[in-house]
């Protein structure tokens, strides 16, 4: 893959702060970003990315291709957990298989945001509707995962317990991050240029700085989880690296088929290739108690996330560049 891309990704300050966080853990430093600061950064990032996406959408307006992209995004979010479940089922108990499938069917907002900052580094444009695509892709996998779990031949007691659909729907569609993202998107859409003028110094100018602080913390958190990999065995580890590649590949094909621009294509492929570690784990913990969060969170956080940030972004981009020209 193209060396320039690798470098302009690795020399992007947010990625370097991610390394710094990992380094701190390996050096057993006491460097720490205490709660609720990471929560603050993620609230800020979701608000900003949502708002900016809404403003862009306000400018671009909605056309048939945007609608197609959103439909493509949703179908990817429905298919990925479906096929991965049957792959996982061959090695993992049904609860774990369903939870991991949901994790990889959903998306990682931070990976998406890192991709946008990578694109701005490369001066490659992208559309605000991709934020809407991300919002649409967070929830469906949760439902698919739980349904697959429920329909499987009973093994755990909680499969036969009555499911609280009402709670599940709420956790899937109204969880904090989804709601803040969609709400900010709507507010950007409503207020347009006027809102942008008022909020840009906050949502735009200092964005990369807050992203650095957040990725510093992500580096700490994911490096701490790496020790948990030993317990997982080879199958989950292989899955956590290979499946993102496969899904990203699908994503690129769909993006190409839909005729997206290079920037939108990268974001689309990153959405398919990334795994959730915020919305999904919380929902799974409640809906599939026998699934082991030490498995699905560790896979997403300690392997898939760093892999996408460090290797994935330049790799996907170089593939896209070669296909798109």
């Amino acid at each position: 893959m193209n060396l320039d891309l690798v470098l302009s990704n690795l020399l992007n300050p947010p990625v370097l702060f991610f390394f710094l966080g990992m380094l701190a853990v390996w050096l057993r430093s006491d460097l720490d970003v205490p709660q609720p600061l990471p929560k603050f950064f993620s609230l800020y990032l979701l608000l900003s990315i949502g708002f900016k996406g809404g403003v862009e959408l306000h400018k671009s307006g909605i056309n048939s291709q945007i609608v197609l992209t959103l439909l493509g995004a949703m179908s990817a979010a429905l298919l990925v957990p479906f096929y991965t479940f049957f792959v996982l089922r061959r090695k993992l108990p049904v609860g774990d298989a369903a939870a991991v499938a949901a994790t990889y069917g959903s998306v990682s907002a931070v990976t998406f945001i890192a991709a946008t900052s990578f694109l701005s580094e490369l001066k490659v444009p992208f559309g605000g509707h991709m934020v809407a695509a991300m919002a649409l892709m967070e929830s469906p996998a949760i439902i698919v995962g739980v349904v697959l779990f429920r329909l499987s031949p009973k093994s755990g007691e909680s499969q036969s317990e009555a499911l609280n659909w009402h709670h599940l729907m709420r956790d899937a569609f109204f969880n904090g991050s989804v709601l803040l993202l969609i709400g900010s998107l709507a507010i950007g859409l409503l207020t347009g240029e006027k809102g942008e003028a008022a909020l840009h110094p906050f949502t735009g100018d200092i964005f990369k700085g807050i992203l650095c602080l957040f990725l510093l913390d992500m580096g700490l958190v994911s490096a701490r989880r790496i020790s948990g990999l030993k317990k997982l065995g080879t199958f989950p580890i292989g899955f956590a690296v290979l499946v993102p590649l496969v899904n990203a590949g699908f994503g690129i094909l769909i993006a190409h088929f839909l005729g997206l621009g290079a920037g939108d294509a990268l974001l689309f492929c990153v959405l398919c290739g990334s795994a959730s570690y915020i919305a999904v784990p919380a929902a799974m913990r409640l809906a599939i108690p026998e699934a082991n969060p030490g498995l699905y969170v560790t896979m997403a956080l300690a392997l898939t996330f760093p892999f996408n940030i460090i290797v994935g972004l330049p790799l996907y981009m170089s593939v896209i560049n070669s296909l798109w020209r």
Partner: protein
Amino acid sequence: MQVVKKIEIITDTLEMNEVSAVLEAHGISGYTVIKDVTGKGERGVQSGDDLTDVFKNSYLLTTCAPEQVGEIVEAIRPLLKRRGGVCLISDAHWVVH
């Protein structure tokens, strides 16, 4: 001072709403919760350092009449069985005011 049983429950933060609902269903109207405590147990370390509440515990302290304790314990046990956690019972005196 009145003799009571002191009940301490430690489990997932995500689980606490259900626990307090069960307690209230059994007529417990007063309790204290300390959110986001960390810990270690059968299900491993709960470091509470990530963005989900998945690895965070909460601590709940409540009291009940000695004769009621058996009923409460039976109501809480299934929750702990399903999701892990701890419930400790001890003797205490309640300062009537």
